[in-house]
């Protein structure tokens, strides 16, 4: 059996994904520093923040999932979109807003005259991370609930349980895996997140890697990166242990819990939206109101779009053979898994490795190419994923039919595979583009000198303390996030339709 071309093309991709890990391992081994008290504090801070955020996300996400699944809310699709929206907003925007809103001289004091305490450290970071990650739990739990057979709920009711008791004793235990899946995503996101702890000054791994990098301690940054990767590996390992159980629901159940519950749910949802969505808009809107466009340079937006656009194109081109190979056999699926690793590697960690690569390979040093490589390695799974779902729907028989009608392999690829995969290519490129536009830590480390983007400019503004100048880039980033959310939701809708057909 001849090895398919797509395997050969995927091999260098897999190697490129693994290379940064090898670089880190090599660098980390050279570090001469032992594990000390400072390092222990970093571990404790990271683990505490992760655990508290997971707890907060479960406390918010699970009740909201139950409410949006079983209670007939007026305008339910809108509620769902709104409640999921914080996920689309990079948490550093939230952190920036909370940093600016609270404390003496903050936006809240300026607008209302009420003194608010500073939101810094563990408490502030936990609050912000929870507000922007709970939708993970909401979505996975909801999806688990929707795959439960509602007849169970009916059976529990006929056996004499009240609606509330039925939910607690029959429904929730079976949604356990869904909740766990969401919690693990929250943990992964929190461990990887750079912006929130950096802005709210909590010494977690991501913040300290950046600090070490700035202090020219690349080996120490690599050592911390390896420790962080070990934590990530634990989360990923846990993830493999929770497979989603699937039942075949015939219909979705609704519980009529009365107007009181409906009002309570909507009030809670509204408060959450105020905290996660309205407050940042208020802060940035207030700055914009007071300072206007100021000296905002549109070149920033162009830089962001340019780098992200290049990344999107490269990512789909590279993703095509990987996604194709994944459908061919076991070795192909292994290559795809490797390509997925980029998602587990925090941006700051990936960037640390690439900075070192840039230092060794002078062709790449301080180039846009290195930044684009960083984006591609980090967001490749998005492109591979959306391509794969399309390619999976192409039957081998359709290709065989084209071949037997006289089409050579390339013609069959061009006339059947490519047009059928096109929506996936576009969706994958859009996702990579929108993610790369908003990426912060890798951009900070890999941007060529003078190549300032929206995200890095916001960071400089924060570092320099001229928060007001952040209004325009922040509002633009919010706008891009809305675009990402819309793209994601319509993509999901279409995928749903396709499954229904």
């Amino acid at each position, binding site marked *: 059996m001849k090895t398919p071309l797509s395997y050969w093309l995927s091999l260098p991709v897999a190697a490129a994904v693994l290379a940064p890990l090898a670089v880190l391992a090599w660098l980390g081994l050279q570090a001469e520093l032992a594990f000390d008290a400072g390092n222990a504090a970093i571990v404790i801070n990271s683990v505490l923040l992760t655990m508290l955020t997971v707890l907060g996300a479960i406390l918010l996400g699970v009740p909201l999932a139950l409410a949006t699944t079983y209670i007939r809310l007026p305008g339910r699709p809108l509620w769902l979109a709104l409640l999921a929206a914080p996920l689309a907003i990079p948490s550093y925007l939230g952190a920036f807003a909370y940093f600016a809103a609270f404390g003496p001289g903050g936006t809240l004091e300026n607008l209302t005259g009420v003194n608010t305490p500073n939101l810094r450290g563990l408490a502030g970071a936990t609050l912000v991370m929870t507000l922007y990650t709970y939708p993970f739990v909401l979505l996975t739990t909801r999806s688990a609930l929707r795959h439960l057979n509602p007849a169970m709920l009916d059976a529990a009711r006929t056996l004499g349980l009240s609606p509330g008791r039925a939910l607690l004793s029959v429904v929730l235990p079976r949604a356990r895996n869904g909740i766990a899946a969401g919690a693990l995503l929250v943990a992964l996101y929190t461990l990887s997140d750079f912006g929130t702890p950096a802005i709210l000054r909590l010494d977690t791994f991501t913040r300290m890697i950046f600090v070490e990098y700035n202090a020219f301690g690349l080996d120490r940054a690599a050592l911390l990166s390896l420790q962080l990767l070990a934590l990530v590996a634990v989360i990923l390992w846990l993830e493999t242990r929770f497979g989603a159980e699937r039942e075949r629901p015939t219909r979705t159940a609704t519980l009529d819990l009365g107007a009181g519950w409906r009002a309570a749910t909507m009030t809670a949802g509204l408060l959450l939206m105020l905290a996660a969505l309205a407050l940042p808009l208020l802060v940035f809107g207030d700055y914009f109101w007071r300072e206007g466009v100021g000296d905002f340079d549109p070149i920033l937006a162009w830089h962001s779009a340019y780098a992200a656009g290049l990344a999107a194109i490269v990512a789909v081109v590279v993703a095509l053979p990987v996604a194709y190979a994944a459908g061919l056999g076991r070795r192909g699926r292994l290559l795809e898994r490797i390509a997925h690793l980029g998602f587990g590697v925090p941006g700051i960690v990936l960037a640390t490795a690439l900075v070192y690569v840039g230092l060794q390979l002078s062709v790449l040093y301080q180039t846009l190419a290195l930044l684009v490589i960083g984006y591609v390695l980090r967001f490749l799974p998005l492109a591979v994923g959306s391509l794969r779902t399309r390619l999976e729907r192409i039957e081998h*028989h359709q290709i*065989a039919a084209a*071949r*037997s*009608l*006289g*089409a050579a392999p390339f013609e069959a690829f061009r006339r*059947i595979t490519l047009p059928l995969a096109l929506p996936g290519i576009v969706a994958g490129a859009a996702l990579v583009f929108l993610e790369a536009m908003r990426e912060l830590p890798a951009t900070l480390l890999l941007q060529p000198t003078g190549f300032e983007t929206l995200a890095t400019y916001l960071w400089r503004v924060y570092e320099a303390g001229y928060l007001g100048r952040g209004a325009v880039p922040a509002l633009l980033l919010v706008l891009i996030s809305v675009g990402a959310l819309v793209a994601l939701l319509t993509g999901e809708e279409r995928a749903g339709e396709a499954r229904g057909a």
Partner: protein
Amino acid sequence: MLSLDGLVVRYGDTVAVRGIDLTLADNEIVTLVGPTGCGKTTVLRAVAGLEAPAKGCICIGDLTIDASNPVPPEKRRTGLVFQDFALFPHLDVYRNITFRLRDTAPAEHWLAVLGLGAVRHAMPDTLSGGQKQRVALARSLAHAPALMLLDEPLSNLDAALKTSLRWEIRDALKAAGVPALWVTHDQDEALSVGDRVGIMRDGRLEQVGPPETCFRDPASRFVAEFLGEAAFLPGRHAAGWLDTALGRASATDGPSLPDDVDVLLRPDDLALSTQGDHNAEVLNGRYEGETRLYQLRLNSGTMLKARVNHEVVLAPGTAVHTRIAAGHPLTAFPRQT
């Protein structure tokens, strides 16, 4: 037109096809039938060029394909029809059928013949199963194949459609004058649609021949049982005659038989009556509409099935007389101990 000569196909270490010889005449339809995993689909895929032969060769017209010369599928001029239709979902019916045609006249012809005129601009997703299979057939035939290959073309369709489309496809193949290899797991379909039937088992052809021959004079007990209800009654063979407890019948020509044999009895080879010498008991009966099928236990313990007119109603437990009533020679196999 098509000839297979000692064809062997392997999937890694497993041998799916273990040496098949088969020749199709111009315009001949041969059905390949057998249980799941017998290798029938693999034969088809090898002919289409989707699997490479490990040994032996495949001749399509003047093309000779073997392990050293694996001609790619697009060079073979074979038309493939799948059970899942394999229409191109992004092209409408017309563009599916004209996929690689320069001259679209054949497309018009087959659209008309197969009654697809009304749906020519419909997208495949909007068609019924029967329409999809007609489009797939029209697409293949319009590309003027030298040979048609059909892989269980009817198994995704409901029962009522199956029988009518069976004739429609056969007529279209005959009208096109193209030889066809038609794979199915349904013995009724295999017997009614093929000019000849090939019965496969474990990667080998057990028998190839006209449907009547295969059914009435099967080459093995496996073929006998696979193609229909079959029971084996001990008997003695002498000078072209078979003597059994249920009567005497002439033996079909064939390989020489020992004295002790088992005679193949189909349900319609037996007559049943409540009169006369009771030699069997009715165990149960199945109403089939025009006929009834009774399971019988002979007093000797042998189990048989008899098919009789639906007017003969017998309760389980009824003692009956049964005898061989076939007007044709019967097939026998050496006694199995």
